[in-house]
C-alpha cells in the first residue's frame, strides 16, 4: 500500500514517516533584505530539493543565487553555466557560461503583483556530482516568464542557498522541500 492512506484509529509508525518522499524542510520570510541565507537546508537525508519563492523587489531587479558550504560560506568562485529562454511577447534564448551566480528572474517592485519562482535543485549535498538547478519563474507585474537550467561544473557538497538581488532589496517568502528517493 502506498501511504498516505489513513483511516481513523490507524497507528502512524516511524517507518511510515520515513517513507514519505516529499518533506517540508523550512520556510523563511524576509523583508527589505539585500541577501537571504538559507543555512543547513541541504543534507544527506534528501537527494533533490524544491524551493518555492514568492517575492518582490524594492526596485526593478534581477534575483540570483549562490550555493553555500559549511555554515555560511558562499561559493563565489564557482562556475555557474546557465541556459534557457524567457518570453514577454517573443521567446528569447540565451546560453551563458562562466557566470558568478545562478539567475532566477527579472522582476519589478509591485507588492501586489509579486513574482514567483520554483527551483528544482538536483543533488546539492552529494559529493563528486555536479549540482544542477532548473528554474521556472514568473514576474507578476510584467508577465515575464523565464525557464532556465544551471549546471555547476565543480563537485562541492553544498549545505545552503544564498539569494540576493542585483539592485536594492527583496521582500518575500522561501520554502524548501526535500525529495527522498
Amino acid at each position: 500500500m502506498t501511504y498516505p492512506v489513513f483511516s481513523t484509529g490507524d497507528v502512524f509508525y516511524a517507518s511510515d514517516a520515513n517513507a514519505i518522499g516529499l518533506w517540508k524542510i523550512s520556510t523563511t520570510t524576509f523583508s527589505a533584505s539585500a541577501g537571504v541565507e538559507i543555512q543547513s537546508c541541504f543534507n544527506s537525508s534528501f537527494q533533490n530539493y524544491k524551493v518555492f519563492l514568492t517575492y518582490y523587489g524594492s526596485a526593478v531587479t534581477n534575483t540570483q543565487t549562490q550555493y553555500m558550504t559549511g555554515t555560511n560560506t558562499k561559493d563565489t568562485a564557482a562556475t555557474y553555466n546557465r541556459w534557457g529562454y524567457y518570453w514577454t511577447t517573443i521567446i528569447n534564448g540565451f546560453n551563458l557560461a562562466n557566470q558568478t551566480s545562478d539567475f532566477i528572474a527579472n522582476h519589478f517592485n509591485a507588492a501586489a503583483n509579486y513574482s514567483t519562482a520554483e527551483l528544482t535543485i538536483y543533488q546539492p549535498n552529494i559529493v563528486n556530482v555536479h549540482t544542477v538547478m532548473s528554474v521556472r519563474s514568473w514576474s507578476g507585474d510584467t508577465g515575464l516568464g523565464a525557464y532556465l537550467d544551471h549546471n555547476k561544473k565543480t563537485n562541492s557538497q553544498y549545505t545552503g542557498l544564498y539569494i540576493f538581488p542585483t539592485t536594492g532589496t527583496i521582500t518575500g517568502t522561501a520554502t524548501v522541500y526535500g525529495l527522498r528517493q
Partner: protein
Amino acid sequence: MKPQITIHNAETNETVVREMTDDEYQALLDSGWTPGDDNTDNE
C-alpha cells in the same frame, strides 16, 4: 548604513536579521549590486 541580510537556519528554524558585515557588503558590491531607489546608502 549597510543593507540588511536575513539569515535563516533550517535546522534550528531560527532567523536573524542584521546589518551586513564589511565582508558581506563588499561581496555584494563585487557581484555588481546597486542600491536602487530604496534609500540604502551605497558606501
